[in-house]
């Protein structure tokens, strides 16, 4: 009996099935934040580990030097009084300066008396979860909406794009450290997704304030526009370059990508630039802009990019120091 499928049929079906299956999967947009946290934790661990290893190595060398003459002359452990059971007496314990955690307040360490909550970098309105824990309730007049994730997400988006008109947010899903809110804008043609905002609580409890960890287009449709990228290092007031992709969703008009550099938790704009995107007949175009900070950020910068209207979107971008 002839086979119903030949290898080519199976290969074709397999390719289509894997593609379809993969396209259904949308990674959370906080991957880079999590990777950076882990890199920071690893660095801190190494900072402690390196001198300890060196110290242990030095101690081993000293011990070997001290022990070698007595071993070579045959006057080593034989002269040491034995413990009951025939075991040699243990050496006196070495002082153990090993700290098990970094300094208080460092990222990744538990805080607030609850080991379940750990510090992490955040974007808005505070630079870290711990600082949010310390200030959010006290600054309820300044940020009155922090206990509402929908309003917090809208306030956050409006703090960048400047226009709150028509913005609303609804719960998208939960992700391990918090919640994702889909911010949309109501337009004449219907609802347009603007950004997927990632929030975490600063303490346990149903009334605990939320802070924003990130915002990204990843995970929703191809139409949202506001995307946040942490910038690893901004060297003083040196210029840096931001390169990305933009997609034209409707119409033929050119778009403008707007870029801002801020410090996490700050509304002060350290640099702003526009990048014109001339689509022509293409739906996807790259854009580039150089940003020069007005003053040196005190900490890591956050770069936000968004398009000038709801019909365009920033697909991907990367910010990096300009190569010398």
């Amino acid at each position, binding site marked *: 009996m002839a086979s119903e499928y030949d290898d080519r049929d*199976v290969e074709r079906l397999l390719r289509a099935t894997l593609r379809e299956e993969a396209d259904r*999967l949308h*990674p959370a947009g906080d*991957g880079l934040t999590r990777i950076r946290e882990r890199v920071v934790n690893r660095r801190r661990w190494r900072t402690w580990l390196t001198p300890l290893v060196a110290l242990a190595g030095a101690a081993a060398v000293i011990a070997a030097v001290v022990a070698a003459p007595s071993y070579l002359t045959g006057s080593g452990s034989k002269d040491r009084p034995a413990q009951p059971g025939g075991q040699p007496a243990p050496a006196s314990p070495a002082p153990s300066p090993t700290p098990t955690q970094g300094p208080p307040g460092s990222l990744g360490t538990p805080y607030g008396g609850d080991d379940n909550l750990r510090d992490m970098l955040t974007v808005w309105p505070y630079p870290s979860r711990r600082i949010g824990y310390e200030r959010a309730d006290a600054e309820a007049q300044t940020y009155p909406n922090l206990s509402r994730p929908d309003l917090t997400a809208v306030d956050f988006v409006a703090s960048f794009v400047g226009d709150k008109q028509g913005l609303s947010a609804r719960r998208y899903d939960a992700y391990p450290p918090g919640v994702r809110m889909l911010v949309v804008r109501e337009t004449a043609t219907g609802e347009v997704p603007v950004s997927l905002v990632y929030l975490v609580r600063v303490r346990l409890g149903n009334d605990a304030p939320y802070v924003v960890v990130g915002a990204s287009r990843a995970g929703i449709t191809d139409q949202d526009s506001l995307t946040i990228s942490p910038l690893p290092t901004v060297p003083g007031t040196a210029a840096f370059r931001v390169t990305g992709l933009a997609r034209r969703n409707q119409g033929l008009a050119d778009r403008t990508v707007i870029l801002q550099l801020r410090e996490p938790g700050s509304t002060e704009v350290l640099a702003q630039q526009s990048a014109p995107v001339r689509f022509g007949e293409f739906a996807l175009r790259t854009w580039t802009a150089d940003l020069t900070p007005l003053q040196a950020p005190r900490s890591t910068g956050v770069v936000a990019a968004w398009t000038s209207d709801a019909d365009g979107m920033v697909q991907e971008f990367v910010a*990096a120091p300009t*190569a010398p």
Partner: protein
Amino acid sequence: MPVVKRVERLDADAALTALYTSHYRQLVRLAALLLDDLSTSEEVVQDAYVRMHGSWHRIRDPEAAVGYLRTTVVNLARSRLRRRMVAQRHAPKPMPDAPSAEHGALERLERDRLLLAMRRLPARQRECLVLRYYADLSEAQIAEAMGISPGAVKSHASRGIAALRVSLEAV
């Protein structure tokens, strides 16, 4: 890929950002096809990026970094699968998968059957097929990512395809 080329002279942090932007999503999807679990796949890929960041002084070349990431993801996914299989041996047996009511179309059923058959393949065969038919890698690239010879890649792939064909026909 222009974004990746630009990281050539940058430090590990900048390289991490560029490679995240250009490859993170695809690697998560690749891992998810090997692991069937998005959240574990994200962990695995994040782990690969952390390792790449720590080894950047040795890697330097962005193209090599992509290969490094892919190999690490495959190895970590394999290791997770091994652990999961040990755990599953002691877990109660799940109900057999059945297509849902709305999946009436023949094509949909065919794809569901194929995915189910993929999950039952030995890990190496599955890796070969995902790297070949999802990631579109050459035999040499698959061999590098899996740490096996090109001949072994051929053998795993052809056995995998044969097993899938048998599963599709066995209705």
